[in-house]
């Protein structure tokens, strides 16, 4: 049987660790969120709005991790973001004046200024709550928003604690319902990390599919006949979709991928580093440390930062169109070639870090706009769809158990467990073990004790986040990651001792509650022994 049509399922994974410091005036790590909102989340909302205005009926899967959702719903952070974008608008206005005699730069400064005004107006339009926008596009049938482990815990390294794994998934589902007012259909396991038996936990929590890296499917037992071109039924009724390597390479690869094109904007050369401190001072960190401002005038040319040429916005936009054409043409060919050997329509699953589009790859949102539009309007063999759409058509799949895997370097756990970060696990595991015991011993707790137990559960979940180990491995903001580990272990242990001793300091607890305020709906009983 020959098939000549298939589904391309783009999956964007939006995640940032929970970083919120009311105690600091200008916390550098909080800027991760502000930069992502400015460069990725709002530009993507803009893309969705433009497509919807043009009546382009696209479909896209989007993970919004619970830690990100909690930050996007936080009044303090959103208030601070408004201040951040106000400053950017201010800087862009100054840039238009500063560059008025520098033709090429002035044009770019004007583009940035308009862009920042537009971003601010979109932020205002959605009442300073971007989750409203994402929910709107889900309710309108364009997006399928899925959840992720509550604090992006790398589950294979928590596998010794079944209750903790269950709690990560349960909390994710509860939090999703709280923000999106419906139940999630699928889940993005943090770092695509799966181990045998995890699908049972997903089934118990009402999730019907998840994703694994390519070798999770190709090394599955028994070997599935369709490789990553169809999901597999793990035997529990939960389906695993495999990542397509070809579409990954085309977009991800820094050497052969589209984002490395020399016409695209360079990420590293920023006016925050280039201009006089006297001028740029109010827009960098208050301590005087230079930071990226988001205004960059050069394109990817040469490895030496000083040699880069001036960026040409119109050429870059033209390039996104060419690359989108190439991408769609490649999908058409891929689907036509694969479909010949299948008795069903193939699905090509392409997961990407959401922040790639806009933050790392400035033109990424425009590329995505072009691809989605072209497929909907001109796709001959390719249709846009989500894993749920596919499962709606094909309710049965080959039965096999995926192989333990992740999408990290080398495909397993080495990014999150190595010489640089192995020291954290004795503390993470001990706190987890203690939390499970607390949930069991104080199951009936009420009042102040219950508040302390809920906060202990928050602290242990924040401690389990895979981001700290990742930062230590990549050697970026290691000091910050170490501090977070120390803080959460300290706060958890103090709560543990107070709960056992029956003397909880209300003032101290209140302070910790107001700082680590993730998951207002937390109920520590999700950690109870099974």
């Amino acid at each position: 049987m020959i098939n000549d049509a298939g589904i391309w399922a783009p999956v964007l994974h939006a995640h940032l660790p929970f970083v919120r410091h009311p105690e600091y005036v200008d916390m550098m790590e909080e800027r991760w969120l502000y930069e992502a909102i400015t460069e990725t989340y709002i530009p993507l909302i803009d893309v969705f709005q433009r497509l919807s205005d043009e009546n382009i009926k696209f479909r896209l899967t989007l993970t919004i991790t619970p830690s990100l959702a909690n930050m996007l719903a936080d009044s303090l952070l959103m208030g601070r973001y408004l201040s951040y974008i106000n400053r950017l608008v201010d800087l862009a206005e100054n840039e238009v004046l500063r560059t008025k005699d520098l033709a090429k730069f002035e044009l770019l400064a004007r583009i940035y200024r308009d862009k920042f005004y537009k971003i601010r107006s979109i932020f205002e339009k959605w009442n300073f709550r971007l989750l409203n926008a994402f929910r709107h596009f889900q309710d309108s049938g364009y997006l399928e928003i899925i959840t992720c482990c509550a604090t992006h815990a790398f589950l294979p390294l928590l596998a010794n604690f079944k209750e903790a794994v269950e709690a990560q998934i349960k909390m994710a589902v509860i939090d999703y319902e709280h923000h999106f007012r419906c139940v999630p259909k699928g889940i993005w396991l943090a770092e695509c990390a799966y181990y045998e038996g995890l699908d049972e936990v997903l089934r118990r929590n009402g999730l019907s599919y998840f994703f694994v890296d390519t070798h999770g499917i190709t090394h599955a037992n028994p070997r599935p006949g369709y490789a990553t071109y169809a999901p597999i039924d793990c035997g529990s009724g939960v389906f695993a979709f495999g990542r397509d390597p070809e579409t990954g390479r085309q977009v991800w690869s820094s050497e052969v991928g589209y984002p490395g094109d020399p016409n695209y904007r360079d990420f590293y050369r920023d006016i925050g580093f280039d201009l006089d401190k006297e001028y740029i001072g109010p827009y960098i960190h208050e301590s005087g440390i230079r930071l990226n401002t988001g205004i960059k005038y050069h394109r990817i040319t040469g490895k030496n930062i000083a040699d880069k040429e001036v960026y040409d916005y119109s050429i870059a936009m033209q390039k996104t169109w060419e690359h989108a054409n190439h991408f769609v043409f490649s999908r058409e060919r891929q689907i036509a070639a694969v479909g010949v050997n299948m008795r069903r329509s193939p699905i090509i699953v392409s997961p990407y870090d959401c922040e790639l589009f806009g933050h790392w790859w400035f033109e990424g949102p425009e590329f995505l706009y072009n691809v989605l539009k072209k497929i909907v309007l001109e796709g001959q063999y390719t249709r846009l769809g989500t894993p749920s759409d596919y499962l709606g058509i094909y309710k049965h799949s080959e039965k096999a158990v995926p192989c333990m895997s992740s999408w990290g370097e080398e495909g397993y756990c080495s990014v999150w467990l190595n010489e640089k970060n192995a020291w954290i696990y004795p503390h993470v595991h001990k706190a987890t073990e203690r939390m499970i015991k607390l949930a069991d011993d104080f199951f009936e707790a009420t009042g102040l004790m219950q508040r302390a137990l809920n906060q202990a559960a928050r602290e242990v979940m924040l401690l389990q986040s895979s981001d700290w180990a990742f930062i230590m491995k990549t050697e970026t903001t290691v000091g910050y990651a170490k501090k977070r580990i120390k803080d959460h272990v300290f706060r958890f242990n103090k709560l543990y001792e107070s709960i056992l001793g029956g003397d909880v300091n209300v003032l101290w607890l209140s302070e910790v509650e107001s700082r680590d305020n993730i998951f207002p709906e937390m109920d520590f009983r999700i950690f109870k022994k099974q």
Partner: protein
Amino acid sequence: MKTTNKTASKKIDILAEDQKEIRRLKELDDIELLKEALSRLIYETSESAMTKKPVKAAKKLKRTAKIGRAVSGKKVKISYSFTYVPYKKPERAETKLYAINYITLSLVKESELTGELPLDYDENRLVLQILDPFTAHAYWEVSLQERCRLRLGYGGHFVLRLHNISDSTKEEIWFPEDIGNCFVALPKPASIYRAELGYYSSKRYSCVAISNSVYSPTDKVSEKTAEPVPEDRDQPVTKDSVRAATKYTLIIQEPDEKDSGSENFKPL
């Protein structure tokens, strides 16, 4: 003169209100409510600042700090600033946005919220974790009591025994320390392993801790092939039927006239 009187009477009203609030919180004798009240006020302030009421927001913050200090007797610091950036484009000249710039609020000292990690947990513990098909990671700790029992320092040494439960083989790795971790090379993928921490002293072996068991993933494609889905369950499709099937889930209907909301997704 009239204006001054009005201002003065407003001030008195506010003071009276504050006193009332302070009394209320004190009478409740429930200090935990204080933080909740402060948090609520701060959130309300953030919201009102974003909805273009910065003066009201600033006043609210000042009062919040004052009430907090009066009730708790502790230093309650709330710093704030508002940024105002008018849109300069003519078509948006009327739009004004304010943002709360920062808030710091602390009821306890910073040093009470952070500290060093525990050096140990004073227990015998051995944990094994899988890294990839050929590597595992083990970490362990020996309690003070156990260290005394083993009489450490009299020529003995620790040993890690790795048992392959799948084929009943074992190997030993020697270690000089009673607390630590190491990466262990696994002889075979797709096997179940368990480790044992022991101590050799004068040719006598004592078992100190036994780990959890772990399963190393396979490194190759399975020789068995999955059962194909029965033909009647598959939907052999042509281009048109797939298009139709796909459309089934993709089509977004035009909004119902009665429905004032946006487009709703309804399968055909």
